[in-house]
């Protein structure tokens, strides 16, 4: 058997689909900016949408009221894009994961809470923030990468 190349070591599942997928995400973000002038992070919708339900001053901030409609449309687009992929590329079959439900629920909760407290997630800080060369976003990315590496590896040992 030939020795594994560096590329095979770093990307045992191949690398092309990662780059292609990343560029497609970037194209979506760029499109939203080119035509509408909007910065398309993904986590704000999880604050702004609650402004429809709760009259609390936090939710009624202008930045949420201004953008809550387009953010919902943007989120609907994500769902549709994934749906198109499922039927065009994955034979229409529903996807599954074997990550335990409690990890999904608790992890999702912490990710939602933390993203809103920190004003951004992997897309808001990672893609939009780094894309606009903002140092605070670089700090945020390094911080959540560090705690995520730690958590994921502790879970593997547990």
């Amino acid at each position, binding site marked *: 058997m030939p020795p594994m190349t560096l590329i095979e070591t770093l990307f045992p599942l191949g690398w092309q689909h990662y780059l292609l997928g990343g560029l497609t995400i970037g194209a979506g973000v760029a499109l939203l900016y080119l035509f509408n002038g909007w910065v398309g992070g993904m986590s704000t919708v999880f604050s702004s949408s609650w402004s429809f339900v709760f009259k609390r001053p936090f939710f009624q901030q202008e930045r949420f009221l201004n953008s809550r409609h387009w953010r919902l449309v943007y989120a609907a*687009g994500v769902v549709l894009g994934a749906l198109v992929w499922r039927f065009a590329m994955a034979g229409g079959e529903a996807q599954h994961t074997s990550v335990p*439900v409690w990890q999904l629920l608790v992890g999702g909760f912490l990710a939602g809470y*933390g993203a809103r407290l920190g004003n951004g997630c992997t897309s808001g800080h990672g893609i939009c923030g780094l894309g606009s060369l903002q140092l605070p976003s670089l700090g945020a990315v390094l911080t959540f990468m560090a705690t995520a590496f730690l958590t994921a590896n502790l879970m593997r040992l547990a």
Partner: protein
Amino acid sequence: MTMNAHTLTLPKAIVTLLAGGLFGFGLSVATMIQPEVVLGFLQFKDWGLMLVMGGAAGLAMLAYKGFPRWFGRPLLGGQFLTQPAQWNRQTVIGSAIFGVGWGLSGVCPGPALAALGTGNTEVLWALAGVVLGGLAHGLTARD
């Protein structure tokens, strides 16, 4: 509703839907919708996520730096908005908590939403978590 830079006209709504569609399609192509792949990256088994984030951030950089210079205004009107990030306690603590949740579940807000399209019913638990996490933050935040 008064007109402002965020006003959602029909053409802008169509672009927004398309932009979100590219985002969700790209996440799926990049297999970021599979928590196992994300956790594999976080456990140093596969470096693909760097290519995803790098490719996306690279194009975003071109857009954020280039478009205002080349076009002056967005093609459908309004203005090129900026979203300045702050470096403060909330950013640090929030990002740290976000990372713990991401490392536990392998899911972040975009892929959580995409699960509605891919029909990944298990990941919908993570979406429920993100929705409730956003609520819990808003209900406890200082106004």
